[in-house]
């Protein structure tokens, strides 16, 4: 339960994650239920209910939240991305067509 988490595991969690500031306070959530509130650098705020979770589960949850960035959790459309989609230049309808300037005909052969 959250009481056990605060008594046993909160200090260790705070020591292991020095870049996360852990505040423990009663009465400060939006409702009466005990809530773990994660505020990220880009402004997202995530609330998780911890009322009926054991101390270890709360530690796991807190570690998961601490390791996340604050990006929205939405479906990733494709698991790949590249900033350089083309190395030799993207194909366009004129890529492999000869230019107007290439001269063809019998004159070349005689040279």
């Amino acid at each position: 339960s959250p009481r056990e988490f605060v008594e046993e595991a909160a200090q260790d969690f705070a020591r292991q994650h020095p870049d996360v500031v852990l505040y423990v306070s009663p009465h400060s959530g939006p409702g009466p239920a005990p809530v773990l509130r994660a505020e990220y650098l880009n402004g997202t705020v995530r609330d998780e209910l911890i009322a009926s979770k054991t101390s270890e589960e709360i530690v796991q949850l807190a570690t998961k939240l601490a390791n996340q960035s604050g990006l929205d959790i939405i479906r990733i459309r494709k698991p790949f991305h590249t900033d350089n989609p083309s190395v030799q230049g993207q194909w366009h309808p004129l890529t492999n067509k000869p230019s107007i300037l290439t001269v063809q005909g019998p004159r070349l052969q005689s040279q």
Partner: protein
Amino acid sequence: RAAGPLLARAGRRAGLGTAPSTALSTALSTASPPGKKRWLRAYLELQRLQAPPQRRSEKPNWDYHAEVQAFSHRLQESFALDLLKTAFVNPCYIESEEARRRQLGLDKDAIALQLQDNTELAEQGLRFARAYLAQCFEGAYPELPAKGIEALVNFLTSQELVSSVAQNLSVQDLALCRDFPAPPDVLQRTFLAVIGALLESSGPERTGIFVRDFFIPQLIGKDLFEIWEVVNPMGLLVEELTKRNISAPEPRITRQLGVSTVLPVYFVGLYCDRKILAEGPGETLLAAEEEAARVALRKLYGYTENRRPWDYSKPKQGLAAEKAISSN
């Protein structure tokens, strides 16, 4: 930040007495039971949505010292904490605080704040960042002229970019300033002051790595001429070619499509000594020639889209030594 266990609030709903069984009992028993009203939740939600935005430091659960320490741990840099706290203090904050204290009518001693500005640290940080970035670009793109390097460095230290980097590092929560939300020039000054504080605490090498890691990735996906505005690319190209003793380029139409339509496409190629230099497309012949000149310039300066990506592997030791010498 975690909200801990809460004392259980027993719901209080005073039950109604027995319903009126006889017509003789009067109207009092039709009152609704005391407790929360139906409209209360919607009203509180409306109040919450319409409340003006507040600084994070004015909301509950805020410890400035702990937050500053966490900031330094997050960046994996060891700062001197007093320097870092000075870096977050802006002059507009000091003025507004002194004005507020004067309004409250305190003595002269109490009015004067014992805080230092971040202006000197910001200047130091700006100078170091500009010099370091200029050196990086001179090393990576040796053909790029001084104006191009200056344009790149100006872009990287511009207000929009630096303030967006600072916002994503939550500098806006820690910075002390008069207005909320903090304007971009304040955020820029605060972030440069943080760089200056890092320079004083950890030395030029680590600060160089920090600047490289946060500023150079902002160039990914950007084209040279988006950042550096060149009015006459053809003239610039002719200058560059004369410097390298190559004859002037001759433009020729290489391909054309849809000449008599509303959307023609012309490919103009630039030839030096009958050899192709660059080819560029455009809607009109002039636009195509200008684009071909830009492509040629990109090839000459080595800033094409298929160049080798930036080398983040090791810090350049020679740079650091030169930095230390030049800043002294």
